[in-house]
Each structure stands twice: as structure tokens, then as C-alpha cells.
């Protein structure tokens, strides 16, 4: 209770409130801009937060994360260009509504369902994170090894071109984490004689490169594509009857989003897609879905925002990121010298309450901004690409440089961007590599400690129930995409046979 009151007292400081509001406005803006996502924005901002105290720094990133998820819906509805992947499902019904002159109604429903989903997820975070952290007190190195393995295996189920490619990306990230001096033995690995690499590759320049550098090149490949202009009319907001009609969908999506968010590596995109599908599946009249049904906005928006707070649960309680953006927030915690995991709850409870409160404030703030400034925020799409992206690249370079004021980090950022572009072209995503890079140290250290505890007998892993549970879950999450693939193929074959007959 003392910690909560201390955190609450911290919020009487106008500076902290201003930081959260700036984070919220920034989040809505970057979320609204196609190509710029809250993940990229948090990655870009992270080095600059290192000069701040931990509470404002993490509050800023958390506010940006919450608002960015909502911001994507603005351009999804107004210009059919989702600002961020989690808003892709919102465009299915949002854009037809905007075309029918009901943009205000669609934006209003997106704001309300987002804020309900977001607040629900913060409640889940407040309840679930301490409970999970209490369980995590019983974890030793073998449990952490199995848990991080489970986190990496969940990469197989996240969206992307191929489960195998996600897993390869995750493992590659773990391999990148081995660059530098081995802390047990003091032996250099993969440093090729560069002393700058002895401390290892910091994930921040890699992350900035994989998101911002790679997107810069992607934008270069799309210069010829036409620009879509926003529709600035129709400000009629949804009425009480509309909310009543969508209430069941919002409640269902809150549950779906929270569950998906709790799973390591899963995030808002998957939650939004499932939220949309379930909204359609439960609807009695499905005829308007895809043509402009408000439930088609309420479902994905409540789900992707419900996933935000829930994704913070494994991040804070276990140190295993729940999504790409929470991986960056996890990195921010580490960079501030904090230890995510159960100790965070005993050592720095004030910070945790501050995170909860800042997410709550951000949710209310983006709802207000969403209602009042949606049309203004949509104007960010009018910034010419020719100026926006060079500016983003320069900011990315400063972000990479500023952390250690080392030119090597700028090289790493640029090379990661080029490499990320090649990988993206061949169906690999950036998120698994980042997750692997962040979890790599935990995987290696916990495995080494476990092997020393078990006197190098691998079978001892199977004597610990929590380890066995995680290993079974790991196996299941790796097999699940294969089962899904097999079922899809079988259905396709059946459909083809039926068509032939």
C-alpha cells in the first residue's frame, strides 16, 4: 500500500503527467502513420529515455505503447491503411463505414472499445502480474531455461510467413546474443578482433535497425505507389444503441485479447484477428461484416488493446516479453538497471504501480485525443514520404549513437537495417530476432547454471514438474503450426476434390 501511495504521489508531479501525455500523443501519431509503429517508436525513443529517471522513462514508453495500438485504427478507418499491424482487422469494416460517410461513428466505436479493452487489460495486469511473480519465486535456473525456451517456441505461432522462419529468426537472435565475451570464461566469441564487440551486440541498435532502417528501405521500394488521402467528413458519433449492440463483442474481445496477450511472444495482431473472427462468428446477422458493421471494429479494437496490458504480465513478472513492443520495454527496464521478474515486485513496487497508473492514464488520454483529434491525427499521413523517412533514419542514427556515443552502434544499426530488409524479403520477421537477442543471455546463463546444478545430466530436467510443464508446452507450441498446416492442406484437398466432382 505504501508503494502504491508513493507511486500515486509521483503522479502529482506535472512533469510525469506531461511525459505521459506526450507519450500518448506521440503514440497516437506514430500509430496513425502507416509504416511507423509503436514498436519502432519505442525502439527509437529508448536510448533517449536512459537519461531520465526510471519512472518517467518507463511510463513514457508504456503510454506510447498503449496509445500506438489505438492510433493505428485512425488511418485504418479513414484511409484503409492500418497505421500498425494490430489495426489491420479494423480496416475490414472501418473503411467501408468511412466511405459511407460514417467515419465519426467508426472512430468513436474504435476509441470506446479500445479504451474498454485497454482498461480491462490494466486490471488483468494488476491482478495477474503479482500472482505470476509469486509463482516465479519458486523458479530456479532450470525453470527459467524451460520458460525462456517456451517463450521462444511461441514464436512459431505468431503471425508471419512461416512458423519455421520465425523459429530460425528467434534462434538467430539467440546466436547474436552470444557475440562478445563469455562471462563465465572470459573468452571472446565472434568478435573478429574488434574490441568494441567484446561487450556484445547491444540489442538497441539492432532493434532500431531492424525496425526503422528496414522500413526506410521498404518505403524506398514503394515510392511509386499512390498516396491515399483521408476523408474528413462525417463526425456523427456512435449512440447508446450502437454501444449496446457491440457490448457483448467488446466483452468477448477483452477476454480473448487478455488471454492472447498473456502468452509469451503473442501480441495485438493475433488478438485483433481472433477478435474480429469471433465477433463475426457470434453475430446473428453476419451480412454487414466487411461492408461496415460496427461490431467488426469493436471486436478487433477491444482485443488488440486488451492484449497490451496483458502482454506486460509475462514481461514484468517473468522477464519474458509478451510482444515485440514489450520486448523493448523489457530492454528499457534492463537498461535502467532493473531486474524484471519476481524481484521487481519486492525491490521496486513503486515503479510497478507507476507503470499501472501510467497505462491507465494513457488509456483515458488516448480516448479523449481519439474523440477530439482523430481528424487532426489522420493528417500525419499527408507528411511527404520524401521528408518523413529521411528524418526517421537520422533520428534512428542518433538513437543508436546516443546510448554509448559509439559510431560502431550506428554501423550495427545500418547493417541490421540492410540485413532486416533482406530477411523481410525472404519471409522472416524482425520480432523473433529481437526476442531471441533479448532472451539469449537468459537462455545461455540458465542452461549453464542448470547443467552445473545437474552435474551435466540432462535427464534431471525431467525431475522438476514446472520444467516438464514448460517443455510440454514448448513441444505443443512447436507442433501446433504443423497441425494447423496439415488441417488446412486437408481442407484444401477436400475442397479441390469437391470442385472436381
Amino acid at each position, binding site marked *: 500500500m505504501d508503494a502504491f501511495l508513493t507511486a500515486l504521489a509521483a503522479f502529482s508531479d506535472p512533469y510525469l503527467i506531461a511525459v505521459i501525455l506526450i507519450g500518448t500523443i506521440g503514440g497516437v501519431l506514430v500509430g496513425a502513420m502507416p509504416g511507423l509503429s509503436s514498436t519502432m517508436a519505442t525502439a527509437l525513443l529508448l536510448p*533517449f529515455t536512459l*537519461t531520465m529517471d526510471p519512472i518517467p522513462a518507463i511510463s513514457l514508453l508504456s503510454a506510447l505503447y498503449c496509445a500506438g495500438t489505438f492510433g493505428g485504427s485512425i488511418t485504418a478507418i479513414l484511409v484503409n491503411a492500418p497505421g500498425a499491424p494490430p489495426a489491420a482487422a479494423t480496416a475490414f469494416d472501418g473503411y467501408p463505414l468511412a466511405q459511407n460517410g460514417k467515419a465519426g461513428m467508426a472512430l468513436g466505436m474504435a476509441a470506446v472499445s479500445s479504451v474498454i479493452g485497454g482498461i480491462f487489460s490494466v486490471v488483468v495486469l494488476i491482478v495477474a502480474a503479482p500472482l505470476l511473480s509469486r509463482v516465479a519465486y519458486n523458479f530456479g535456473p532450470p525453470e527459467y531455461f524451460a520458460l525462456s525456451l517456451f517463450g521462444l517456441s511461441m514464436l512459431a505461432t505468431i503471425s508471419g510467413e*512461416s512458423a*519455421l*522462419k520465425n*523459429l*530460425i529468426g528467434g*534462434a*538467430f537472435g*539467440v*546466436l547474436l546474443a*552470444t557475440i562478445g565475451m*563469455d562471462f*563465465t*570464461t*572470459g*573468452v*571472446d*566469441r*565472434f568478435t573478429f578482433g574488434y574490441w568494441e564487440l567484446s561487450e556484445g551486440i547491444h540489442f538497441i541498435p539492432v532493434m532500431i535497425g531492424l525496425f526503422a*532502417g528496414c522500413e*526506410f*528501405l521498404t518505403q*524506398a*521500394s514503394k*515510392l*511509386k505507389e499512390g498516396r491515399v488521402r483521408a476523408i474528413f467528413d462525417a463526425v456523427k458519433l456512435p449512440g447508446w444503441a450502437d454501444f449496446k449492440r457491440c457490448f457483448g463483442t467488446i466483452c468477448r474481445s477483452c477476454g480473448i485479447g487478455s488471454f492472447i496477450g498473456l502468452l509469451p511472444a503473442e501480441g495485438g495482431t493475433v488478438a485483433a484477428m481472433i477478435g474480429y473472427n469471433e465477433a463475426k462468428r457470434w453475430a446473428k446477422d453476419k451480412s454487414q461484416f466487411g461492408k461496415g458493421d460496427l461490431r467488426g471494429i469493436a471486436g478487433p479494437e477491444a482485443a488488440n488493446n486488451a492484449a497490451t496490458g496483458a502482454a506486460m504480465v509475462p514481461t514484468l513478472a517473468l522477464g519474458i516479453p509478451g510482444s515485440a513492443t514489450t520486448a523493448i520495454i523489457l530492454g528499457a527496464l534492463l537498461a535502467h538497471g532493473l531486474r524484471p521478474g519476481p524481484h521487481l515486485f519486492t525491490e521496486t513496487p513503486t515503479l510497478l504501480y507507476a507503470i499501472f497508473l501510467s497505462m491507465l492514464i494513457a488509456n483515458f488520454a488516448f480516448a479523449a485525443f481519439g474523440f477530439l483529434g482523430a481528424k487532426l491525427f489522420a493528417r500525419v499521413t499527408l507528411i*511527404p*514520404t*520524401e*521528408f518523413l523517412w*529521411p*528524418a526517421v*533514419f*537520422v*533520428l534512428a*542514427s*542518433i538513437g543508436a*549513437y*546516443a546510448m554509448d*556515443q559509439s*559510431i560502431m552502434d*550506428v*554501423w550495427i544499426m*545500418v547493417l541490421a*537495417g*540492410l540485413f532486416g*530488409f533482406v530477411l523481410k*524479403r*525472404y*519471409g522472416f520477421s524482425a520480432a523473433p530476432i529481437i526476442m531471441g537477442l533479448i532472451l539469449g543471455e537468459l537462455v*545461455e546463463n540458465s*542452461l*549453464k547454471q542448470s*547443467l*552445473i546444478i545437474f552435474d*551435466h545430466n540432462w535427464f534431471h530436467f525431467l525431475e522438476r514438474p514446472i520444467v516438464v510443464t514448460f517443455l510440454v508446452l514448448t513441444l505443443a507450441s512447436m507442433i501446433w503450426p504443423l497441425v494447423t498446416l496439415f488441417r488446412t492442406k486437408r481442407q484444401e484437398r477436400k475442397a479441390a476434390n469437391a470442385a472436381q466432382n
Partner: protein
Amino acid sequence: MSSKPSVDRAAPAARFPRDMVIGFCTVVLCAVAYWITLSFADAPAAVAQNVQPATFPRLVISVIAVLAVALMVISFRKDSRPGKSVPAMVAMTASMMLAFVVAFEALGFILAMALFCFFMPVIWGERRWHAVIPFAVLFPGAIYMLFVLGLGVHFDTGILGF
């Protein structure tokens, strides 16, 4: 600078499934990475406690290789179409990214940033000089004010003394 699609260079991917080529390249990279681990120094047994510095990287490399082989096997069951060729503008932009870092070191941050902010929009086809020139001057100026004067980020002095 033309950004017309160049001649399709993805023809080999049509002959072999694309994922098979990716899987094969990954296996080759794994072999190279494994070969590099052979050069890691061995630590004394008392320090290493039976886990040598190369053990974990080799384990990860093996996992990647197994996954890459699985990708190759599965690729036989997939249709593979040649991918779209990369526009020349991407190569040009990538060169500019590298040139920016070289200029960062050689000319200093402010000058590198101003040159980049001038040439990049021009290369991307922007010809409104009344917008390009203020952007190339004001944006680096704003960055300097914010990061150097405001946040105290130190940049090495360039050839022009700033």
C-alpha cells in the same frame, strides 16, 4: 534516378522452391558459423565447469541448421513463384545509408546530417527546392538544439570544427 523494376533476378527461385534456397543458404551460414566456433579459445576446466565458450553457440547453430533442413523439406510441398525484383531505388537508398555513416565519421555529424537531408529527398524524386533546402537546414538545426544543447549528447567534431 530511375526506379523501374530491373530484369527479374529471381529466376533460380522459380527452378528451386524459394524456401529451399533460403534453407540451403542458412545451412551454409551455419557451417561457416560452426567453423568460426572452432577458433574459440578453450577455457581451463576449473573455470569452464565443463561448459566451454563454444558449447552454447554450437548448440544454437545446430538448432538453426535442423530448422533450416526442415524448411528445405517442407519447401518441396509449396508452390514457389519468382519474387518481385528489388527497385533500383532500394540499392540507392542503401548506399546512402552507408554513405551517411561514413560521412558521420569523416565530416562530422551535423554536416553528414545536412547532406543526407538534402540529397535523400532529391534522390527520392523531390524537386520542390523551397521545401528541400529548409528541410536540409532546419531539421539538422533542430536536432542539434535538441540533442546536443538540450540532452547533452556529445558528437565528435567534424572537419568544419562542429
